[in-house]
């Protein structure tokens, strides 16, 4: 093999290669921005591969939008995107990512229907918005160097895990009225995300918890478990060492839920910080 070796590069090329190797890499925030786009695309394709026919608009807006949001504030995602559910089935997922790196993941699995039904068009799902009292979007992940990998890991796990919920009836699909079945489905989705966050916290994965909580915030901004979500967010921020944000979140929490049973727990979480 040795006789096939090219000669070593000469000094001139070597100096150019060395300069190239010293390149500092992508601009700050690039990794988080692309990560958000990747997660969005994975979630969208997961929906497709699981049986739902997501519109191409959904995929393209999820992927190109997030990467295009170089300004750092744009929300990109599946806003308004529709998924046409086949009679047999199944998963619609929506991911909205902020260019700053926060990721919302909302995921629904619609169980196979036992009776034939026409194809229905479902607006994929409660489209996440910038949460008005959001604790997360106020800072990009880039400010938390330890967070991205864990956040990503948790988010990907989340994307790949289906949250089983009962099939919504057509009225629910129309999004006009929350039927009892839809309410059940929504609560199941809420509980799954909160449980995910709690599990992450219990294994000391604050980043993973924050992703799940952000997903909840995006999908159910005024959900039944919003209080628990915000309390856990404060605890996760404290756990992640983001004390200023935790304190700020705790203050907002106290203003919103002054009598909350979580109050003492939050005070305790911040007491030693």
């Amino acid at each position, binding site marked *: 093999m040795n006789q096939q070796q*090219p*000669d070593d590069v000469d000094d001139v090329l070597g100096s150019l290669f060395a300069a*190239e190797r010293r390149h500092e*890499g992508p601009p700050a925030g690039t*990794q988080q921005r*692309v990560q958000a786009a990747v997660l969005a695309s994975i979630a969208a394709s997961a929906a497709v591969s699981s049986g739902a026919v997501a519109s191409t608009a959904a995929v393209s807006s999820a992927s190109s939008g997030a990467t295009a949001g170089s300004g750092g504030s744009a929300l990109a995602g599946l806003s308004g995107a529709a998924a046409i559910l086949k009679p047999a089935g199944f998963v619609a997922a929506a991911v909205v990512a902020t260019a700053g790196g926060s990721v919302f993941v909302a995921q629904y699995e619609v169980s196979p229907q036992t009776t034939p039904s026409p194809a229905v068009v479902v607006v994929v799902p409660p489209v996440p918005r910038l949460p008005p009292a959001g604790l997360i979007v106020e800072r990009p992940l880039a400010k938390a160097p330890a967070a991205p990998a864990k956040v990503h890991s948790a988010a990907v796990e989340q994307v790949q895990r289906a949250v089983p919920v009962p099939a919504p009836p057509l009225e629910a699909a129309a999004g006009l009225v929350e039927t009892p079945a839809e309410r059940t489905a929504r609560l199941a989705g809420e509980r799954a995300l909160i449980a995910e966050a709690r599990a992450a916290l219990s294994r000391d994965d604050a980043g993973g918890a924050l992703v799940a909580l952000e997903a909840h915030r995006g999908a159910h901004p005024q959900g039944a478990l919003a209080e628990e979500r915000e309390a856990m967010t404060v605890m996760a921020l404290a756990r992640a060492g983001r004390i200023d944000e935790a304190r700020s979140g705790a203050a907002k929490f106290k203003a919103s839920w002054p009598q909350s049973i979580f109050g003492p727990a939050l005070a305790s979480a911040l007491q030693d910080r």
Partner: protein
Amino acid sequence: MSNTDQAPRHQDLGVDGSAPAASDAEASPLPLGVGGPARPSFAEVYGGHFKAVWLSLRRFGVWERDLDDAAHDVFIVVHRRLRDYDASRPIRPWLLGIAARVASEFRRKSQHRHEVVSEDTEAESARLPAHTPAFGIRADRALDDKQRRKLLHQALEALDFDRRTVLVLHDIEGHAIPDISHALDVNVNTLYARLRQARIDLKAAVTALTTTADRGQP
């Protein structure tokens, strides 16, 4: 992740089929050796290798404006194919092999719109500025890193893409030819031939560029 910034040891590379520069292991805690290595998670791959992928896309000639989208595409492919990755081999060449294919596609697409965007800053930045000091071969040491990179990237544009790929992976990224061969599924001898020719072409391109620049000096 200063991994890719570390100079590969050229005298060590490709001579004995040794593993890529130690920077690989440094870039990520991923198991790279033999003996039942565990397959890394997607998150580990992303976190440990994003910078390298981004840089390699750039070195393969993806335009600055397309780098994020190209990196996105690379990791979508990685996510889909991670289970196919042979964990007994270093992961970086495998990743960069995917990056090379994605870059090739982006370059192909970008050719269609080149005329439309040729006036943007990116195209401008790829051009040697008028005030650039003489790029005389013997004067190259006078260039700063940014100028050298600019010269290198412009010269790389003169290369056939397959030759450019192996030169980037071997001479710049520091990967061993056998690993590149495995990643690209290209015969080792073919790669050596491409590398040899790539260096000749690159040297000629650098010489041409510096000569041109010299002529432009007062």
